[in-house]
């Protein structure tokens, strides 16, 4: 059975190849069957891996040696342990449900086969990332998911905003990946191996080594960990490389659900957890991870408070929740971070798919202030959306409560000095999260419809092919929390040390529940009871509102600092000097030179017979003098 796990990778790859090459020539039904069956096949096999891992087995298998060059041995192989099993389950199950949903959502789109091809390619890349047993496979999958993200965000590439968003995603990701690559290089030249098991054996030797850069001594392990974290910042959209994620909402909604909620953006969290032995050896890196995560969580929650586009609010919510996961990793509670990843996949995908359902009904409209009272016309969407909102707010009994509470408890109880700081930020963020999520619920689903009668007549519930995944995800959002993931992952990731007594756990739990309820209540007050309050607040705090509305002007700042100088440089130097003068100079100059030399030599041929005879005789004279006189 062990060797067959490679099929988990091959099914989506086959689906991709089929759909991209032959998809155009077969019916859309065939395309959707191929796309869905391939992911279902992966799901079946990943369930087998879960059963294997439950028995305590860890499977490592190399099926192809790719690079073999002196010390560098890189092979395609998989390492299946508890962490991989969880990730496989998340990716395959949620991915499968989203595939089914896409059949309904993308119905009638001219790029239908291309969509399913890219979606399968994405699943393949993500599985490669999580199943790999060395850093190169991780990087390979990392880059590949970035590429698929680009393809899928810019899916409707005829729209300029979509193709720009795709480019932005890829470029910002690439900036992070640059640091990631340098981290890998540094790791390789320190331990001469890239296989996880070998690396983890060897890194304790590196513990006190430092790297001398221009006279400064930097701890080697910290440097490596921070560089690798750069990639995670880019891929998982933390500060400062988060700017691509809101714009990525230009892609189709199922794409946002799969890639930017459940799987790709969580790759960074997976990476940190997978490399936990490395991060455990560096206090500084852990602090950076935790603080970045916590600050990002708070920051993006504040932006999400005032946005009007439903998908953007949910996007900022994603950034915020991933901040939670990184904060958990930073306080050495990797298990809690992965637990939150697991539950977040369900409820965030549900939120996105619900938004997609609403878009479907509202003919593409996303501004929540153009909606209202949708719950009467779209009951299933409303109920599932409400369940997701309750989960994310941390209402006890639902899965979000369990995972979020774990994180808050371990942050509070952590022995690290920044633990309490992280805890405070995350608790406030919990309140904000509950607030903005219920803002969507109350504004879009409750109250009166803010559009025309015509539009309201058009609002209808989505077809079953879209609502059944919603229901399944809602059930998942409720119940998956009861499976204690941190306990499951303990053999691998260890248990965090507590610095406070267990009694305080109840207090922390109470605080987080109160924070969630405060958020919901405020939203209720502002949007149901006293609808005029938001407007008054906006007018009173005009400047503050403006800053939040414009996302702290970060996009403008980046444009000024980075984008414009690069474009200026490209135009003035690269185009004018290198392209025109140097390259075209050579390309045009060599033929001109040849022509000139030719025209210098051409006059030798005069066409006159006697001159040719003279040349012949000169040759013979040379012959006679040289050879015969030897």
């Amino acid at each position, binding site marked *: 059975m062990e060797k067959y796990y490679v099929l988990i990778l091959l099914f989506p790859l086959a689906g991709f190849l089929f759909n991209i090459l032959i998809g155009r020539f077969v019916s859309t039904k065939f395309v959707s069957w191929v796309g869905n069956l391939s992911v279902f096949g992966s799901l079946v096999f990943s369930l087998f891996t879960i059963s294997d891992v439950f028995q305590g087995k860890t499977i490592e298998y190399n099926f192809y040696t790719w690079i073999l060059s002196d010390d560098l041995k890189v092979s395609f192989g998989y390492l299946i342990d508890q962490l991989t099993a969880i990730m496989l389950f998340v990716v395959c199950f949620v991915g499968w449900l989203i595939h089914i949903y896409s059949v309904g959502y993308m119905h009638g789109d001219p790029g239908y086969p291309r969509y399913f091809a890219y979606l399968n390619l994405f699943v393949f890349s993500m599985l490669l990332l999580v199943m790999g047993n060395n850093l190169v496979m991780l990087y390979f999958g990392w880059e590949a998911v970035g590429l698929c993200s680009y393809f899928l965000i810019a899916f409707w590439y005829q729209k300029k905003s979509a193709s720009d968003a795709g480019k932005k995603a890829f470029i910002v990701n690439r900036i992070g990946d640059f640091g990631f690559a340098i981290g890998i290089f540094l790791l390789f030249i320190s331990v001469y191996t890239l296989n996880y098991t070998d690396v983890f054996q060897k890194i304790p030797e590196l513990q006190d080594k430092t790297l001398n850069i221009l006279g400064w001594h930097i701890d080697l392990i910290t440097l490596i960990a921070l560089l690798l974290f750069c990639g995670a910042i880019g891929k998982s959209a933390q500060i400062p490389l988060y700017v691509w994620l809101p714009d990525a909402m230009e892609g189709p909604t199922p794409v946002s659900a799969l890639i930017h909620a459940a799987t790709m953006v969580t790759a960074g969290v997976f990476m940190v957890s997978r490399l936990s032995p490395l991060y455990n050896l560096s206090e500084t890196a852990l602090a950076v991870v935790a603080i970045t995560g916590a600050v990002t969580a708070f920051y993006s929650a504040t932006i999400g408070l005032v946005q009007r586009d439903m998908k953007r609010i949910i996007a900022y919510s994603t950034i915020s929740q991933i901040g939670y996961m990184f904060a958990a990793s930073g306080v050495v509670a990797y298990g809690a971070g992965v637990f939150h990843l697991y539950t977040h996949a369900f409820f965030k995908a549900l939120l996105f798919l619900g938004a997609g359902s609403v878009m479907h009904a509202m003919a593409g409209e996303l501004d929540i202030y153009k909606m209202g009272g949708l719950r009467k016309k779209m009951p299933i969407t409303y109920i599932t959306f409400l369940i997701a909102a309750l989960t994310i707010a941390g209402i006890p009994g639902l899965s979000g409560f369990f995972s979020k509470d774990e994180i808050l408890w371990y942050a509070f109880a952590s022995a690290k000095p920044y633990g309490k700081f992280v805890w405070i930020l995350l608790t406030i963020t919990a309140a904000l999260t509950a607030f903005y999520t219920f803002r969507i619920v109350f504004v879009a689903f409750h109250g009166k419809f803010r559009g025309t009668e015509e539009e309201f007549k058009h609002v209808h519930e989505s077809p079953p092919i879209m609502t059944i995944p919603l229901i399944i995800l809602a059930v998942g959002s409720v119940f998956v929390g009861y499976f204690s993931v941190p306990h499951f992952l303990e053999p691998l990731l260890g248990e965090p040390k507590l610095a406070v007594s267990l009694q305080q756990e109840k207090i922390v739990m109470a605080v987080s529940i109160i924070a969630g309820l405060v958020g919901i209540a405020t939203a209720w007050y502002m949007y149901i009871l006293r609808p005029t309050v938001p407007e008054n607040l906006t007018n009173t705090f005009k400047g503050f509102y403006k800053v939040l509305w414009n996302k702290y002007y970060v996009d403008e700042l980046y444009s000024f600092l980075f984008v414009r100088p690069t474009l200026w440089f490209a135009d003035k130097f690269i185009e004018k000097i290198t392209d025109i003068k140097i390259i075209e100079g050579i390309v045009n100059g060599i033929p001109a030179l040849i022509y000139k030399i030719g025209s210098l030599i051409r006059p030798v041929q005069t066409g006159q017979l*006697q001159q040719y005879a003279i040349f012949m*005789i000169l040759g013979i*004279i040379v012959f*006679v*003098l040289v050879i015969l*006189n030897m």
Partner: protein
Amino acid sequence: MNPIIEHAFFIYFFVSLCILSIAVIASKNIIHSAFSLLIFLLHIAAVFLFLNAEFLMIIQIIVYVGGVLALFIFAIMVMNLREELRHKRFVRFSFLGLAVSLIFFASLYIFLSNVKSNQNVLTYSDTNLLGKLLYSYYLLPFEILSLVLLIALIGGIIIAKKTPVDGDRR
């Protein structure tokens, strides 16, 4: 034979051949050149006789003088060149030609003046023997030569043919 007479005759032939060849190349009139060529060829025949090659001498006279030279005269007649006396004889930069041929001669002279000759000379040449040699050892070149002559004949006719112009009767 008395060496002095031999040398005297040889020197006569040497000088006359040189003068004749210069006359060929330096005459204004083409016919003068042609006739100088005729005398030149006859002198060459005499040189062949010196070298005990009487068959060659006869062949030279018959073929060269009687054939090639007659052909030249015919060609000159056909080309109808009456205006020629007014035109320049020599090419521009003729000194270059002079210089080149002088250098050529000098280089050959350096080499040839040191050639040693043995005393074992051909005392007589037998035409009979020549014929036998031609038809046994040199049969292949002989046959090929006949083919070459045929081709030259046909080729010459074709190249020099008048191309039919529109309006001419075939």
